[in-house]
């Protein structure tokens, strides 16, 4: 798409002549100006109407788990794909790079928003059906929230942060609070759970507590300033901030208020024998990871680097992030970027001078309810298991991610 711009010198010559004809011929840079670009991107209608990123930026989503099924597969099905966190800056994941989880490999439903309806029924005084237009008339909220897949568990075989942590993403979501809709319908006495259902093949349905529904859940039609994208649930999806990814029902079409846990298929996926594992596979714990420098990247030499990463928790806002540049022997307070929002990715930074010696970088975070991100050995000790660094923690793994900086500057996953 690059083209030589042919008219530049001609234009300058003409301009110089108009300016008084002091110099005829070549125009030399006067005050040490930067060299002019040699190539230019020719404007094309589509690109002007709807922007494109630079051809030099090539960051893409990859199958999760690493080496897993390609999306789309031969049948056009979409499976899990992970976000390229190694290239992320700030806190928002671009919609086009937001991770995608699908219940069992899905064709994306193509929904005409003018045909789409959301029904609220069950233990309510007034069952209601909303069009998308109806929903957009109602008071709205815009909030940053992460969504993290229950399968976002780092393994020693993973090489990059996209492989270890790429099944989390954070977007700015806009929509109506579910509590607004439930209040409009009037929740009856005796109601205790809510079932949400989507439109995709599996018609995914999850039960979640009424207390959560009335607290901070969003029926979202907007994502990062535009309509929610098809892979993320167009035209309507549910946000259940801080709960495992599968609860955040895409293509939302029905909300049923009920008086018990409904044991839908998605709920069956959360079925556990013991209450500890059940609880730890439900609300997401405090978690952070350094995205720069991270696995697969390379430091060009000793000297200054800003260590940067993301922290989040299903328990609320991140209140503290610490970074260790000496393999966990000492910890320094990292700077938290701006306002730490509840159940949202929070960017942290730490100034660091690398002395060229092999070391390990780690981060750990604390959230507003006082939960702290652990080492695997701390969790093992809590449950009276052998303090083995390769201990697999119960539930979604939120343990500290170590990156080893080799003396040649290459960065490697140091997870046992």
């Amino acid at each position, binding site marked *: 798409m690059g083209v030589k711009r042919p008219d530049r010198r001609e234009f300058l010559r003409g301009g110089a002549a108009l300016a008084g004809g002091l110099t005829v011929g070549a125009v030399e840079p006067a005050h040490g100006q930067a060299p002019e670009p040699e190539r230019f991107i020719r404007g094309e209608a589509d690109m002007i109407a709807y922007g494109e990123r630079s051809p030099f930026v090539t960051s893409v989503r990859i199958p999760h788990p690493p080496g897993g099924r390609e999306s789309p*597969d031969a*049948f056009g099905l979409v499976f899990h794909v992970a976000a390229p966190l190694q290239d992320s800056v700030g806190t928002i994941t671009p919609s086009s790079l937001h991770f995608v989880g699908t219940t*069992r490999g899905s064709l994306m439903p193509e929904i005409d928003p003018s045909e789409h309806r959301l*029904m*609220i*029924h069950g233990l309510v005084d*007034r*069952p*209601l*059906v909303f069009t998308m237009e109806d929903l957009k008339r*109602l*008071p709205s*909220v815009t*909030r940053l929230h992460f969504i993290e897949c229950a399968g976002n568990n780092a393994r020693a075989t993973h090489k990059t942060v996209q492989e270890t942590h790429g099944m989390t993403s954070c977007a700015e979501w806009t929509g109506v*609070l579910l*509590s*607004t809709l439930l209040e*409009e*319908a*009037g929740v009856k006495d005796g109601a205790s759970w809510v079932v949400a*259902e989507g439109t995709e*093949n*599996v*018609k995914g*349905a999850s039960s979640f*507590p009424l*207390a959560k529904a009335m607290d*901070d859940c969003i029926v979202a039609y907007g994502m990062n300033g535009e309509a929610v994208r098809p892979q993320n649930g167009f035209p309507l999806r549910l946000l259940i901030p801080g709960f495992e990814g599968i609860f955040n029902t895409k293509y939302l079409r*029905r909300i049923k208020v009920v008086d*018990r*846990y*409904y*044991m*839908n*298929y998605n709920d*069956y996926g*959360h*079925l*556990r*024998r013991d209450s*500890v594992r*059940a*609880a*730890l596979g*439900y*609300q*997401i*714990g*405090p978690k952070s990871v350094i995205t720069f420098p991270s696995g697969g990247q390379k430091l060009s030499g000793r000297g200054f680097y800003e260590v940067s990463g993301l922290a989040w928790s299903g*328990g*609320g*806002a991140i209140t503290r992030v610490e970074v260790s540049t000496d393999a966990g022997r000492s910890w320094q307070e990292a700077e938290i970027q701006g*306002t730490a*929002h*509840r159940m949202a990715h929070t960017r942290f930074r730490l100034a660091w001078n690398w002395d060229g010696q092999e070391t390990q970088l780690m981060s750990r975070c604390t959230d507003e309810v006082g*939960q*702290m991100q652990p080492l695997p050995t701390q*969790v093992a000790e*809590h449950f009276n298991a052998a303090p083995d660094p390769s201990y697999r923690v119960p*539930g979604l793994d939120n343990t500290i991610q170590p990156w080893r900086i080799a003396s040649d500057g290459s960065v490697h996953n140091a997870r046992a």
Partner: protein
Amino acid sequence: MHVLSNPRPRAAGSLVALLVLLGGSALAQGPTYGVGRTPTPEEIRAWDISVGPTGDELPPGSGTAAEGARIYRIRCAGCHGRNLEGGREPRRAPRLVKTEPGRDVDPWDAGRILPYRSPYATTVWDYINRGMPLYQEGTLTADQVYALTAFLLFRNDVIAEDLVIDAESLPQVEMPNRDGWAPLPDWKPGSPRLPGYPF
């Protein structure tokens, strides 16, 4: 650094208060915005495919394991295997029969088998009805779903071969894992993941 708590919505309450102040007859429990329409009972029944443990939402119809076996061969065996053993690549359909025969096999030691491990037989019906067969969802009749449910429960030694499964009998099926699962924590705003767990 600031920690921002999402403000709780106040608009609804204050609007109601305003309406009351204006002398309207709005009840505090009434709708605030009057947006959205009321669905008919038939519409709700047609949309409502959530079948809970009590089975209240189950439609009329019935089926037996023998009928289910025939339907299974035609509609399910291609992916789940002739003997319910599960599928191979590229269609990794789950195994549907427990790994050990007998009535007293621990549901947690016999594979992750929905028609054996699920605490409620209604979950089996609900899932077949909403999600099966893959990419042909919604093409089974209620009788066929009852029959397939009966077949899977029979093949997992949960029910007798001749039991007729319908809206009345299905919720009464006692699953082996009825009380063998952990309930989720009682969630409240500000809850940690697990009380007493610092991480």
